[in-house]
């Protein structure tokens, strides 16, 4: 993980530039603007966790910013607490508020977080206004720049504090996002179901992301109070929240540069929108750019006339509009709204994303979307003992009287399943017989209507999918559920998530423990890929793999969980005959390492060839069970598969 030489030069010159800026632009007005940009950038880096990485929308970040500001302000105003106390307190208080919001709001899918945070924003403003005894109400709080050892900082000196904290934030955020936590955030957005089944609880990690984000909003808020030396309730309005979101998406999500660029834009925007002359020039510039870009796109046949019509009309229209009006202040919000619409539809990856795609067209090798992981695996690192040792005697899994009711349909009707430790247990049945429902009930995706499941001596039928996965049940999916945007090896690394013990602090400080864990996991992941024959494709995005390889990748990812029970849902679908032979060998090796397997499969020769026991489902009921040969000759099974009843033989 060493930095390349060019990157080092860039970072050092960037830091030097940051340090020199106040000397190049000593005007206090500009220094203040740069401080505000730095503060907003810290908040936006945090907001990116929620909006960019886990894909939720927060409409409460201005309020969290306000909570941080008021925590620092009130502690300083009421108790005279110093900077070194107020800032950590602001971070902590905002994080707690973030937790209180996220815990209930993220329990359900849908726009709930947006709705709850919107309400929170309003309430915070009301509370700040009303709780006069604490916050001084609408009058606001006046305070001074921080002092250190009796020396009160001036704005120039405060600039360095903010920039140092911004650089620190960038480093910390970058380390978190490049770690196993960042991988979890990306995975849960890509396929929530698969994340849960890899013991990466979607709910828990969304809450983590929101709390980290809230903590950074608190940090930014506390820095803001010291910068402005005055706070009042109406600063932290809904409008500010929307500005933050616009800044983030305009700059570019899922980058470190995007939030900084976004912060520069929204801090400068009011100045642009206050000066009609400047606004006209910018509108004209945008229109000119749109005309040139559309012409280029049309000429190279990259864009269709339909695609360019609306943005072209918009930018030209904006330019004409800017010359028609004499005073801009009345239309500021309309322009702001149009800007949001434009960015949402035409710059969804922001300016940084747009630049990146331009560079990619010219120099594809310059743009790297994933870190190349070049570790070579070997045969001895494929296997690891399960996290929870198998202690039960006899059957590893006992399902008793399972019923799964969907409205009027009984997908499972009083099914018992006994899976012997160390066996391969085949589960067959015609389409719609309840096999996949069974898989989903066993892994906790559906909660059974009745009945119970005991696994390794523990009742798991009321547990969440991620807890069940944590107990040692891994699975593959009938309709492949990979993390498509992640590379093959990253997919397996998500499966190895449970092997990481590093705390947030370890990740921030990049301790030896965190480096060792990452190294071990990569070695393991490479070995697992080698085991399923995908070593050559380690750095390919999962969505680009052919269907058959995707299925094999799912097996590698499932094995990464160190399961004691592996559920394979139609692993041979889409495989060629030689591939199927290899798959059979693979399943035998898996069993050879003590992992019990439940196998759903339509290729009868595969099931009958490797299963120790076969259960047959039909219309949600178990109609037969036994050794493959017994089941094959069972009259009920033949009828279920071929239809019948008409030619019933006399007993």
């Amino acid at each position, binding site marked *: 993980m060493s930095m390349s030489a060019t990157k080092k030069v860039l970072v050092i010159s960037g830091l030097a530039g940051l340090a020199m800026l106040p000397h190049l632009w000593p005007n206090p007005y500009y220094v203040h603007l740069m401080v505000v940009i730095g503060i907003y950038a810290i908040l936006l880096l945090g907001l990116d966790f929620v909006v960019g990485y886990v*894909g939720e929308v927060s409409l409460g970040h201005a309020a969290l910013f306000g909570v941080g500001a008021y925590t620092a302000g009130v502690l300083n105003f009421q108790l005279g607490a110093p900077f070194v106390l107020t800032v950590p307190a602001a971070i902590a208080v905002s994080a707690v508020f973030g937790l209180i919001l996220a815990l209930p709001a993220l329990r359900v899918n849908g726009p709930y977080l947006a709705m709850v945070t919107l309400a929170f924003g309003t309430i915070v403003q009301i509370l700040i206004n009303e709780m006069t005894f604490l916050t001084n109400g609408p009058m606001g709080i006046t305070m001074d720049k921080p002092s250190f050892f009796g020396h009160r900082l001036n704005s120039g000196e405060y600039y360095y504090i903010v920039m140092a904290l911004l650089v620190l934030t960038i480093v910390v955020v970058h380390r978190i996002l490049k770690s196993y936590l960042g991988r979890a955030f990306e995975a849960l957005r890509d396929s929530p179901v698969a994340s849960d089944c890899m013991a990466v609880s979607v709910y828990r990690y969304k809450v983590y992301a929101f709390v980290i984000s809230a903590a950074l909003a608190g940090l930014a808020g506390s820095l803001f109070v010291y910068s402005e030396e005055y706070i009042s309730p109406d600063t932290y309005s809904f409008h500010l929240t*929307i500005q933050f979101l616009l800044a983030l998406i305009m700059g570019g999500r899922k980058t470190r540069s995007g939030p900084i660029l976004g912060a520069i834009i929204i801090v400068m925007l009011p100045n642009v929108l206050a000066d009609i002359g400047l606004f006209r020039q910018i509108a004209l510039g945008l229109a000119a750019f749109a005309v040139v870009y559309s012409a280029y796109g049309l000429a190279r046949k990259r864009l269709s006339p339909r695609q360019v019509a609306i943005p072209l009309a918009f930018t030209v229209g904006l330019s004409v509009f800017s010359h028609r009006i004499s005073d801009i202040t009345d239309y500021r919000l309309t322009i702001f*709204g149009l800007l949001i619409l434009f960015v949402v539809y035409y710059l969804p990856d922001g300016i940084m994303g747009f630049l990146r795609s331009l560079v990619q067209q010219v120099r594809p090798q310059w743009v790297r979307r994933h870190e190349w992981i070049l570790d070579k695996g070997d045969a001895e690192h494929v296997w690891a003992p399960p996290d929870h040792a198998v202690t039960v005697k006899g059957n590893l899994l006992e399902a008793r009287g399972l019923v799964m009711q969907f409205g009027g349909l009984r997908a499972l009707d009083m099914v018992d399943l006994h899976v012997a430790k160390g066996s391969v247990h085949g589960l067959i049945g015609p389409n719609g017989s309840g096999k996949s429902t069974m898989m989903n009930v066993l892994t906790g995706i559906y909660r059974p209507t009745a009945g119970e499941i005991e696994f390794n001596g523990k009742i798991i039928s009321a547990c969440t999918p991620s807890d069940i996965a944590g107990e040692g049940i891994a699975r593959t999916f009938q309709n492949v559920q990979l993390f498509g945007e992640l590379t093959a090896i990253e997919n397996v690394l998500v499966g190895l998530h449970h092997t990481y013990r590093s705390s947030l602090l370890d990740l921030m400080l990049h301790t030896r423990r965190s480096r060792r864990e990452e190294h071990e996991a990569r070695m393991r992941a490479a070995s697992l890929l080698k085991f399923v024959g995908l070593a050559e494709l380690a750095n390919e995005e999962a969505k680009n793999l052919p269907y058959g390889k995707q299925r094999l990748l799912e097996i590698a990812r499932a094995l990464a969980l160190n399961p004691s029970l592996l559920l394979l849902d139609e692993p041979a679908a889409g495989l060629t005959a030689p591939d199927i032979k290899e798959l059979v060998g693979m399943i035998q090796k898996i069993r050879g390492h003590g992992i019990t397997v439940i196998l759903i499969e339509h290729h009868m020769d595969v099931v009958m060839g490797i299963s120790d026991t076969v259960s047959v489902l039909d219309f949600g009921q178990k109609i037969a069970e036994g050794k493959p040969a017994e089941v094959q000759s069972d009259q009920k099974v033949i009828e279920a598969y071929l239809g019948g009843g008409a030619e019933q033989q006399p007993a």
Partner: protein
Amino acid sequence: MDVLSQLLGSGVAVGMIYAVIAFGYQLTFATSRTLNFGQGEALMLGALVGLSLVGHMNYWLMLPIVMLFGAVQGAVVERVAVRPAIKSKSEFGWIMATIALGIIFKNVAENIWGHDQLPFPSPVSQTPFTVLGVHMVPMQVMVIGGALLMMLAVELFNRRSIYGKAFVATASDLDAAGLMGINTNLVITFSYALSSMTAAFAGVLVAPITLAGAEMGAVLGLKAFAVAIIGGLNSGVGVIVGGLILGIAETTTAYYISTGYKDVPGLVLLLLVLAVKPAGLFGKTVIKKV
């Protein structure tokens, strides 16, 4: 006792307004799993357009025109802000785009009608009367009755007419409805039109009580969010009960604690309900098939 009964009366009236707006959220959420974050602005536009019209015509003639205006406005919101986002499966897209349109509508309204709160003529007499010991203003009764009628009319339409069946089919399974030859895009546009129409109607109803102005929508739209979550985003009874709970909680808080704090119980209830029963008090938990 006298005070309490009055509080109940006004609580029920304001609660019914929340219920109608929340009902509008349910309509679009059912068909497309999206909501109009500018619903409050649809309400505000309805009230202000109604105010401009009522100077030139009879109050009862103004109502259908406002509702038509609301329907068109809703269709525009769907076409501009929601459909492209549904196509690209972007939750961020429709949330931000409907907010952006809301901001634009509000700014346009400020430029047309100004920043002041304008009085809205009441179609019924202003003298309070007493029913069962509860003091009510006739306008409050009209709000309650109008809101209930509006919801009833939409429900009847959905249950009885063939267009309503298309609506229900799309709500229960978008893809299957599409395969059965239902133009689901049109149904979604239609649900937005219905939703904004109910909001515009609610705006005209509530304006004589609250005054009309560009700012009036934001808070109402927000409260209706709380009601929709408390009652359940898929329960018709839920929004009515949720609206009543919130309306009464607010008026009593305003009287017994402080007007400043009257919006606080809404959020607390919202968080409590989500923590205890995320689908809402009356919502059905839907099992998501994998």
